[in-house]
């Protein structure tokens, strides 16, 4: 008799455990919302204290004066070339050429960047590394593409058509009154379709950014492993005054 009861106990127990498992945790209700992080939420002191020394160090580095700009440097102060564009392209040429030459024995022929890549003005006054971060927040390296003369011709057609002052250096484009090409020169010489040219640009553009398709045909790409922003900071450290001019590298005559 008592044996049967034991069986019954075990049976019941198993049943109740199983049914419990099955019944367990039915999802009955979901509530979803978004909470804005605003000044209603007080800053947690321990987090603030942890971040503070990092912030202080960054501000010291970013805000120490490296150079002086007598006038505001902008990418909208010229039709075909601008002070900001010229500064950027000239910096890429002067800072990257020694690296490229030491690695390959070759010289950079010219520079092409994109107008959209200049993200801020440099206000008149003290210039710091913070300006370089504002102008160039992206982690873009300077690369040098080996491009055929025929592709350089396409590049020139693109620049004339684009209607934007894409930064250039080492290349001169002169238009007639109807905005048709009068002549283009690289370091004072006419573009030769069969010659290859070494064009410094950003890794973003060489990998197809901003629809600069002529970079697709390049025969080689050399990465300088040098950030455009770091080239800017190094240049700011070398010079006292930043006074780029709108000049005749790309103009209508």
């Amino acid at each position, binding site marked *: *008799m*008592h044996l049967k*009861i*034991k069986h*019954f*106990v075990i049976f*019941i*127990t198993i049943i*109740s*455990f199983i*049914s*419990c498992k*099955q*019944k*367990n*945790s*039915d*999802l*009955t*209700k*979901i*509530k*979803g*919302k*978004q*909470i*804005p*992080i*605003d*000044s209603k*939420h*007080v*800053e*947690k*002191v*321990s*987090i*603030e204290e*942890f*971040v503070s020394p*990092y*912030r202080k*160090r*960054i501000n010291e*580095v*970013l805000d120490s004066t490296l150079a002086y700009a007598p006038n505001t440097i902008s990418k909208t102060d010229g039709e075909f070339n601008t002070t900001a564009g010229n500064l950027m392209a000239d910096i890429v040429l002067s800072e990257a050429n020694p690296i490229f030459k030491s690695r390959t024995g070759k010289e950079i022929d010219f520079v092409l960047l994109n107008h959209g890549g200049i993200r801020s003005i440099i206000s008149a006054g003290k210039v710091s590394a913070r300006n370089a*971060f504002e102008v160039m*927040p992206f*982690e873009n390296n300077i690369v040098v593409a080996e491009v055929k003369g025929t592709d350089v011709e396409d590049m020139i057609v693109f620049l004339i058509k684009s209607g934007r002052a894409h930064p250039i250096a080492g290349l001169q484009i002169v238009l007639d009154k109807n905005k048709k090409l009068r002549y283009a020169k690289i370091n004072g010489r006419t573009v030769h379709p069969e010659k290859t040219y070494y064009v410094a640009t950003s*890794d973003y553009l060489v*990998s*197809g950014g901003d629809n600069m398709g002529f970079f697709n045909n390049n025969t080689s790409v050399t*990465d300088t492993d040098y950030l455009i922003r770091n080239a800017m900071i190094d240049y700011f450290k070398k010079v006292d005054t930043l006074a780029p001019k709108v000049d005749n590298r790309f103009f209508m005559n």
Partner: protein
Amino acid sequence: MDRRKFIRKTTATGAFVGLGGLSLQSCIGETKKHLTILHTNDVHSHIDAFPKSHSNFPNLGGLARRATLVDAIRQENPNTLLFDAGDIFQGTPYFNFYGGELEFKLMSMLKYDAATIGNHDFDNGLDGLYAQLPHASFELLSANYDFSNTIMNGHVKPYNIYLVNGLKIGVYGLGIGLEGLVTKKLYKETQYLDPFEIATDIETKLKEEEYCDLVICLSHLGYHYKDTERPDDLKLAKKTKYTDLIIGGHTHTFLDKPTVTKNGNGTNILVNQVGCFGINLGRIDFYFESGKSKQSTGTSIIV
């Protein structure tokens, strides 16, 4: 009946009552469970709040404020998990200077449970990401990046299961296609696998083999693209059968409220994303009940 028999009989009956009582207790005593899921995405190294003069996000965001809010919610419900859907890195000088060290340390201080890997988390290369791993006390989850031929091998799990108040919460990660988005030099031999195939495999495993009570996906695919061939969270939702919530990122999508849509079985599934830069914290509360299974009328969703 002799005395011995009587005692054995009563013991057995006692055991029955006792066990019955115990099992009833384990069912009824914990009938209601409440789980809170908190989430961020695309914080992009925004540790400080935006200045009051900022044209888009004046005086918004800030990690120290988020910490206070998360603490308050944990106090209210200790059964809380905190996740991030990727692009932790890149966007302020904190990343340029310290390479993500501060971001990982602070997320650990906030007790994040897991994050998935966004495209910008490759910005200092695999080596750069690997170098910051010692600063992360949370899991990196990605089911569709195969890191086996990289330095990250063994440091990223496809999914993780969290046991919270007796509930099993299965969480898996999904990453976006890297080709054309991230320079090859940065992601090296990382293999991108079809996110939909991987998601359905993993969610099935989490539900049918691991018996998870809830399945959550941390996705950096992006909320929605018109291109029908391009994987996104809304397309993913339609393919899944067991995923309850997709926490998204990448497209910096600000939603008025979490999206409720249908999964592959025609059941409701939530897709949420909270913009970017730590401007918002997402909060999804899940309420579970046991004991009323037979009359269960499904899940009510309040958004």
